[in-house]
């Protein structure tokens, strides 16, 4: 682009979007800061009452003392407003603070430990289901008479309609118990320590990831399929497709270059978002397969009102999705020349 164009791009397109991007993050984080604080209980009480319920013999005085102590430790002594500002203050210093349920371990280190497991599993799974879903979706609208595709379509929808939890549990019981070809639980065998330098350990983790990934792929496939099918159903009757056919172009040239190439664009936006959402983990899957990911952290944090952990995870998730959307917005014109930077 020329200099003028560049300036136009920066001022008329880039800057507004960056502002938008930051606003979104700000609002999102603020919302998730408020919601848990509306709950009738707080992390301190979650701690104390759990201990009492667990039956540790504590006299009333020490319980009281523990409350005040924890309230100070957790930095919950101030009013919500004060907390809100200190929170942003810390955040700008890149500090998510200590987990309240696992005081004083920093939230960031706990997320840092769980996140890789989630990402390693979810991102490949999402991408695989994206590819298959879209290819088959496009094909099924381009070859409407093809029997095999019809079957795939129905199967895809069947699986998709089965509650996620059942798909997971069925895969687990069938392929890990009745036909024990895949591991039963976790991300690696009990009794072995993670060691990413050893190839056999990595193999083990892959082995352990198969069933969880399979669940996610099976679930995701149908959605992409339907989306792509409806998008392409518009395109197959476009002039340029008809023209390409009259010009006698090869079928798969038409399918890939003329049909999918245009239809994929909205799907890419969706993909960006879905990839963004993996930062909050795949909760049910992690519960069923005992997978040490973000989803597990999240649910624990919520049950124990661990504000800072909840904030930590949601911040990751919010920034993840927001960035994905932002980047997609910037890249979109590259994928689709029709959409020019205004």
């Amino acid at each position, binding site marked *: 682009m020329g200099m003028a164009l560049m300036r136009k791009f920066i001022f008329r397109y880039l800057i507004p979007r960056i502002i938008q991007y930051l606003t979104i993050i700000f609002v999102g984080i603020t919302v998730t800061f408020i919601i848990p604080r509306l709950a009738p209980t707080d992390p301190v009480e979650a701690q104390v009452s759990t201990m009492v319920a667990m*039956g540790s013999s504590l006299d009333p005085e020490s319980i009281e003392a523990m409350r005040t102590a*924890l309230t100070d430790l957790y930095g919950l002594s101030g009013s919500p407003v004060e907390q809100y500002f200190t929170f942003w203050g810390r955040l700008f210093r890149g500090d998510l603070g200590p987990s309240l349920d696992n*005081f*004083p371990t920093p939230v960031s280190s706990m997320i840092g430990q769980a996140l890789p497991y989630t990402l390693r599993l979810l991102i490949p799974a999402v991408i695989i289901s994206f590819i298959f879903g879209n290819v088959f979706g496009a094909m099924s609208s381009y070859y409407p008479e093809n029997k095999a595709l019809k079957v795939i379509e129905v199967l895809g929808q069947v699986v998709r309609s089965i509650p996620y939890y059942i798909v997971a549990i069925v895969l687990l*019981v069938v392929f890990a118990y009745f036909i024990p070809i895949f591991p039963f639980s976790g991300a690696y065998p009990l009794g072995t320590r993670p060691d990413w330098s050893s190839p056999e350990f990595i193999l083990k983790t892959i082995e352990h990831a198969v069933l969880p990934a399979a669940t996610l792929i099976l679930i995701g496939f149908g959605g992409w399929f339907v989306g792509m099918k409806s998008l392409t159903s518009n395109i197959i009757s476009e002039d340029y497709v008809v023209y390409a056919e009259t010009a006698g172009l090869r079928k798969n040239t038409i399918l890939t270059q003329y049909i999918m190439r245009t239809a994929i664009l909205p799907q890419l936006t969706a993909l960006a978002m879905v990839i963004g959402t993996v930062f909050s983990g795949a909760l049910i899957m992690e519960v069923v397969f005992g997978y040490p990911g973000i989803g597990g952290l999240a649910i624990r944090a919520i049950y124990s009102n661990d504000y800072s952990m909840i904030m930590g995870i949601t911040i990751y998730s919010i920034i993840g999705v927001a960035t994905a959307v932002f980047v997609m917005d910037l890249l979109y014109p590259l994928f689709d020349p029709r959409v020019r930077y205004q």
Partner: protein
Amino acid sequence: MKKHTLTRRDFLKQAAAITAASALPPQLLALHGNKLLAAQAEEVAPGVPRNQCLILENPSGTVLPADDFNRWRSGYSGVWVCGLQQLALDALWYIDPDAGVDGVWDNALAAEPPIYNDDFTQMTVKLREGLYWSDGVEFSGDDLYFTVDLLKNTPGMGNQGLFERSVDHMEQPDRYTVVFYLKAPNSRFHAAFTVRWGALYIMPKHIWEQVEDPVAYTFNPPVSLGAYTLRDFDPNGQWYLWERREDWQRTSLARLGEVSVKYAMYIDPGPSDKRVLSQLAHELDVIHDITPEGRITLARESPTSVGWFPSFPWAHPDPTLPAVIYNNEKPGLDKREVRWALTLAIDIAQVALASYRGAATISAIHVPPTGMYPQFYHQPLEPWLNDFTIKVGGEDYKPYDPAAAQRIADLARPSLGDLVPTDPDIIRQYIGAGWWKYDLQAAEQLMLDAGMQKVDGKWALPDGSPFTVPLMSMNPESNPTMNRAAAMIVENWTAFGIDTSLDSQANPWPIMSAGEYTANLAWTIETWGGHPDLFFFLQYWHSRLYVPSGENAAGSNSMRWRNPELDRIIEAIEQISFDDPQGVELGLEFCRLAAQEMPITPLMAYNVFTTMDTTYFEGYPSIDDPYTDPVPNWGNTKYMFVKIKPKEA
């Protein structure tokens, strides 16, 4: 147990016991006595043979952070029960929830029970000699003195409040004696040092004295005073592997027998169904808890699985009393008649079926029907209960139904067949005695007595404003029985015309404590189990500690019950020593008072379906050898390790 090799007896048993279809899939499950891929190796970990390693469920699941072994910090962490408090740490005294290896009371680190002066302002502790930390340093009074001193002076540490307020100063007349000088008389000061579920464990001074910030310190690797040391653990907190100390004889456990289990691994086995499958595949030796149905499946399909009771109801009854807890401050519920009406509107048999499939141990009175308590309280009170009357419409009314347990057994039998005992004494021992009648007329009358009125089929307050009683229930992922019970009670109450609904919470405790509830199924009564002293929970119930709803209750009085008579009993208990026989008398008085006032409606013991696999190990505790409680997160389970022996393969 393959299908075609079913013996005729097994077959008849099955046929009698269960409907054909529900029999089939579990048999399929059982068919696969095969190992799960996850642990097909004969080694659990490098150099750790499976048949030498006891695999236990850590009911707290995945432990995060995995590497923080600071057990003394305020707040709870799953790391407490990953083997740390069971195998590595030790305390002065233990009170067993059941009979105990060598009596209920065990002097562990202490050489003898606490010695109080007459006015309970001094407590002298004499310690054992010849006990060693796993790093070879000898254990002594210094450690005890140091521990209490550190906690007393470090805000953010557990028990800080207690020691701050009650310990004036300490003296160490000799290396193995510590004397506590208390600021005020306290006949139960030793409770803080006495393990029931947990208590004050002793720190290794030589480690902690070098620590800058005890609150932040992670005590990793943990130096052990117990028979085991940490061999390895999962940075993601899903497993902890403990190894028997070479010098295990130099620990307090050695007195009681040989520690013959070489390794122990505490794992996060996942949801209930997975635990069942794991044990069917012999990859999980000690299950902490599962659904009753899971337990029944194991009973039918896994001949090697054993429980506390040899048959129905299998479960170990924790010394904990699930109850319907009323917020005694809510309009309507502040009336005794209403609380009694709600009690009589509960069909305990249905509740027992819905929650535990009848595998419950019910209690009409306000102490758990477990451990030694039936002898202490339930049996002595039985005659009184039979004649006990309350006023219903001015008339005397006998609310007690001695046949309740029998009714439960009869109702459970059609679906469980001869898994359910028939001998009345066994039933009394396993399922409990009687409970309160299910009598809607009486309940109706009581409501009217309280001035409540029925507005188009639903009960309303005397002023006609709606009387809604949403029932909160505890619904942790690990155990659904409480929630199932609550759902049944909601059903019962709805039938009685109460405007109610189910509010199930994974973590109800903070909500209870804050009093943000109307009614709630959980517990506020826990006891020593093996020792009759009720101060364990009554300490929180004195009106001087009363806190109104909206603020966090001081301890377990989350029902906000205040009663001068109750205060009198508590004060009396405070006056007498821990082992004073009067204690039981006062306890009985409390039970009678609670029965009349019905501040909460006692239901049953908290039955935990702890299930143990005898494929690799044997010698687990049971009702026939109740030397301790097998529920694996309890500190007391350390005693299992002197009784459990690997099977000679």
